[in-house]
């Protein structure tokens, strides 16, 4: 096997491709994450209401997104649902990086199911007495949720939320299958053009590893900062 030579990555427009891929990957991750967290929180809240229909719908949402592979979900959105949209919407989407938008939506919705389950677990582990105390003070339902339940539930759910954030981050690589020019896509492009597989693969692997570890480390740090002082 030939010697590994990373300098090949600096040739031609490879640096630009890598940089573009990195940016795309980060954009995808951030956007999908924010969407997933917001939606996941709303879903967790919806699951706590008295409406049986709403609770059943959320349960169905969660089950669907957890039992269908993320790749298939991306395909369904990009090849399937996109074609059902009204023509002018499809036109607009195609003019504005449609594959990026649809990949973001697919990944965000998939992860929203996990986020809502994580929060649900956190919420369930809060004793009913906390709710009673808040209600006894005259606090309304939403106030209780916002000020008493959610802060505690979030702390409890933090480790699993961090795990799922890493999962979301890794999931962005799947967007390459529909042509989103993120890091893995760029990696394959460079491989096919330069035939220097090991260098670009190693580079990309290191990037993914580093960022995953960063997310996990960030999560631990956050956990420590939020930890409640004990005796």
């Amino acid at each position, binding site marked *: *096997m030939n010697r590994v030579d990373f300098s090949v990555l600096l040739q031609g427009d490879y640096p630009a491709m890598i940089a573009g891929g990195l940016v795309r990957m980060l954009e995808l991750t951030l956007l999908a994450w924010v969407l997933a967290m917001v939606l996941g929180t709303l879903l967790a809240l919806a699951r706590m209401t008295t409406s049986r229909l709403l609770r059943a719908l959320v349960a169905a949402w969660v089950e669907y997104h*957890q039992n269908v592979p993320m790749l*298939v979900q991306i395909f*369904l959105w990009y*090849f399937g649902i996109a074609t059902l949209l009204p023509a002018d919407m499809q036109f607009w989407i195609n003019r504005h990086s449609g594959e990026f938008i649809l990949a973001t939506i697919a990944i965000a919705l998939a992860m929203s199911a996990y986020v809502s389950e994580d929060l649900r677990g956190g919420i369930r582990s809060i004793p009913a007495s906390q709710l009673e105390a808040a209600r006894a003070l005259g606090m309304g339902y939403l106030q209780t949720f916002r000020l008493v339940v959610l802060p505690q539930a979030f702390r409890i759910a933090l480790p699993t939320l961090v795990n799922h954030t890493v999962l979301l981050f890794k999931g962005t690589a799947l967007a390459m299958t529909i042509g989103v020019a993120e890091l893995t896509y760029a990696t394959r492009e460079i491989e096919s053009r330069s035939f220097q597989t090991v260098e670009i*693969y190693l580079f990309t*692997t290191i990037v993914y*590893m580093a960022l*995953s570890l960063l997310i996990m480390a960030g999560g631990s740090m956050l956990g420590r900062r939020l930890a409640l002082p004990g005796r």
Partner: protein
Amino acid sequence: MTDILTILRDFGPLLLVGQYPNGPLGGLAITFVLSVLGIALAFPLGVGLALARISPFKWLYWPATALIYLMRGVPLIMLIFWVYFFLPVLLGRPVSGFSTMLVTVAIYQASYVAEIVRAGIESLPRGQMEAARAVGLSYMQAMRKVILPQALYNMVPSMLSQFVSTIKETSLGYVISVNELTFAANQINSSLMTKPFQVFAILAGIYFVLCFSLTQCARHLEKRVARRRAGETARTAAPVAPAALPVTAE
């Protein structure tokens, strides 16, 4: 809706078994074979990794830990590309997409199985290992005869969950043209062209039915195991940590 029924009627066999018997096996059958073989291989690998992780020997601990972090930190699709490129180089001969997927999935799942096994072992009361050593069993004998059998029972629901994850992961075989379910669906879509939503809805539906039923089994088993463990805890009065639920991968 009638579209969906038509597609199922016309392409059902392709989705389910590929071109068999007029050609190689494909579709859902391959997905199934890949998943079963994958988890079957992942299991002994995972046990080995788990033992390496709890062993005091640094030369076992660090490589195992490094592998697990690698599997956790890198997207599966990237790992597939690695194995696709590297395995033929290693073996000196071309390797089929199927074999590539099998190896990748087995190693990937092994790292999750390792954590499940480790949690399962550590959730047993310490007294078990102590009692086994006290009667004179060696460490490995104690592991094989006393610890692992009990830990494995506790792990069955988690293993079932990992099996579901494996099924979902096989969908990535598509990117290296392995003729599994997702690949078959894409083929159908390419030939039909006009009904993409229906085709992919069917695809999602098949995965959903398969994975959801298995997940429900796992949940049912989890309750049974928890009930049995509660009984044991009451008797031995030792704190039992709940088996870590696996982080379901793609």
